[in-house]
């Protein structure tokens, strides 16, 4: 059973119509552009239903495929999704349907957690793994912000280091009411798999399976996820390097995807191109 989560009016900035593909009965919305190495990009909370400057920058050096997970953006919620294993399988099925045998996997925030899970279960499918300010680990003494006790605006305030007003194209979903509903739909889809626990302690052991080149990206001043999570991922992944994407004018935050799209894309392309 699916539930239509919101009216879809392309009235906000950076909107780009999506392509659609049927993945075992799920009508998946995705955007794809660029040539070269295939890069499967997994979004976080928010910033969906758009082709971002970051996507564009990444597409200058690779074939970017950006699906929207069930319940996010324009892909309908799926009641059968109960835990991460369902999302992992769905994402891999999406790659199968598009004929992506091996690919570079990039995940941002909660998409980083998903990417880490996929990497642990399907290490042979990865050409490389990039995690941008990724959730997913339990790091004692460094609990992330409780995003479930925030509405979308304060969440984005934190992501964008109190400069949300400069990013209205990124955060508006078609008016105040629609933004509220869309953000609730997405955090509900996230909550189905990531309410409790808000980490997967098994990744501590499982990440040793990921031998592909890995890149873990942190930022200057992350007000959602403590830097120690980035450090820990870099320790656990056997073939990882860590990079900090710093801001040119202002410190970067959890919303680095919006804040420094070009620098972030350049860093990722370095790994994708094996340089």
């Amino acid at each position, binding site marked *: 059973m699916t*539930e239509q*989560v*919101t009216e879809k009016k392309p009235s906000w900035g950076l909107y780009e119509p999506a392509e659609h593909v049927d993945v075992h009965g799920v009508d998946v919305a995705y955007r794809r552009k660029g040539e070269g190495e295939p890069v499967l990009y997994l979004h976080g909370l928010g910033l969906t239903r758009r082709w971002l400057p970051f996507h564009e920058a990444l597409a200058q050096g690779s074939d970017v495929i950006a699906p929207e997970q069930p319940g996010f953006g324009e892909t309908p919620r799926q009641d059968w999704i*109960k835990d991460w294993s369902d999302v992992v399988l769905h994402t891999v099925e999406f790659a199968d349907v598009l004929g992506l045998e091996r690919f570079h996997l990039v995940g941002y925030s909660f998409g980083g957690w998903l990417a880490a899970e996929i990497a642990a279960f399907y290490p042979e499918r990865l050409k490389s793994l990039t995690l941008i300010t990724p959730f997913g680990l339990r790091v004692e003494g460094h609990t992330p912000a409780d995003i*479930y*006790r*925030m*509405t979308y605006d304060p969440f984005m305030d934190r992501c964008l280091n109190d400069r949300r007003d400069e990013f209205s194209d990124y955060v508006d979903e078609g008016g105040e*009411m629609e933004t*509220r*509903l869309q953000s*609730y*739909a997405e*955090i*509900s*889809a*996230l*909550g*189905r798999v990531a*309410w*409790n626990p808000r980490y997967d302690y098994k990744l501590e052991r499982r990440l040793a399976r990921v031998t592909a080149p890995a890149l873990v990206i942190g930022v200057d001043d992350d007000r959602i996820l403590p830097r120690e999570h980035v450090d820990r991922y870099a320790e656990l992944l056997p073939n990882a390097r860590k990079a900090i994407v710093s801001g040119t004018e202002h410190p970067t935050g959890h919303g680095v995807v919006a804040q420094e799209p070009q620098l972030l894309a350049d860093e990722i392309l370095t790994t994708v191109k094996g340089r």
Partner: protein
Amino acid sequence: MTDLEFIQIIDRTYPWFPPAFDRDSIGIDLSNANYDSDLGQDIIEGVGFQAQMAESLGYDGVLIFEQHGHPLALFGNALTGAAWLSGITKDISIGAIGPMMNNYQSPVRLAEEIAIVDTVSRGRLIVGLPMGIGAQYHAIGTANPAHARERYEEGLALLDRIWNEDGAFPWEGEYFHIPNVNLWPRPIQKPRPRVFIPAAGSIESLKVAAKYRFTYQAVAVPGPKLKANIQLFKDLCNEEGYEADPSQIILVTGFFLGETQKEAERELVRHAAWNMQNIMRYATHESFPPGHVSMESLRSMLDGGYRSKGNDPGAVREMPAFGNTPEQVVEIIKEQAEEYGAGGFIVGGAFSLPNWLAHKQMQIFAEEVMPHFRPEGKPRWARQPKPGWTSASERVGRNPHYGGMPEVEIPGRGRLPLFETDPLE
């Protein structure tokens, strides 16, 4: 005469925390460093005192709520509170509203607690089975709010089988897999205690109440909305193939009574205002953790102008039930019972009242309002037969069903009846 049931809310708030006018929420993370166990003992024991008062005043029942992580009501498990109340009272019905099914790892565990409290109270338990308000999910850590509805409904379906079928049977669900469901002891009320489903109007909750013939505990909402909710509940009962009984509709309301309007103002307005400003005060989004409501419900609530608790002390005097004389309250109750087809009222005052003032409120209500709605002024427990027995003689006279007779094997003598054998003979 309209024969109505009256259940008094006796929960009390722990009020000794810093004034919280600037806080979004008084639940969830108001630190328990503010809790003092001596003061807490006074609040909690006051609940027992009020239960005893309510019984001596002739209320049909008393009621406490399950709450978590905040000072507004102190029973994290309403059933443990109900077990205690059953020990310090004799006749009055005891409502435990909560427990939240989703706080239990297994519904069997919940069924066990219900059965034991029902037994030790001699069939006086009323159990409320809410899905649980959203804010609770931030502070208890058992269930995922985005799975809450599915898990809750599966749990209720299992409880229904537990109450209506003999064990052992397997339960093979999505959230629970229990190879052998086999409840010992079973409730003293047959087949189960009364069940209340508190609801502000969620259609999902009303469906559940109708499906299992539970009582719809109608949380106070504006009149037209309340009427629509109750009609919907009746329609849903019809769809299930039966007419809703008036006992299945109970209205939650509050009265602030004084000898005179002026006396009520003097004694109660500050408590009524404090309650409005504090009780269940959560930021809107904390009432709706992820997935706790459907998108349709959320859109409908936001379109309807849902907002957080108000903070307008002046609004208290506008409350329909504030400062009325007992005669006016009698009329209000009569009208509401007729208009909504309700069989009873859950009556609350202010959670912050000192015991003496709560006692005064309850006494005025009991002496000047309740007698208008019951034959000879008697509560139901004084008029109706009770489940269970009250003497050994009665136990034998009731001809209990013996599932089997125990035997014992004595060496050299074989198997002999356990209770009728002298092993030395």
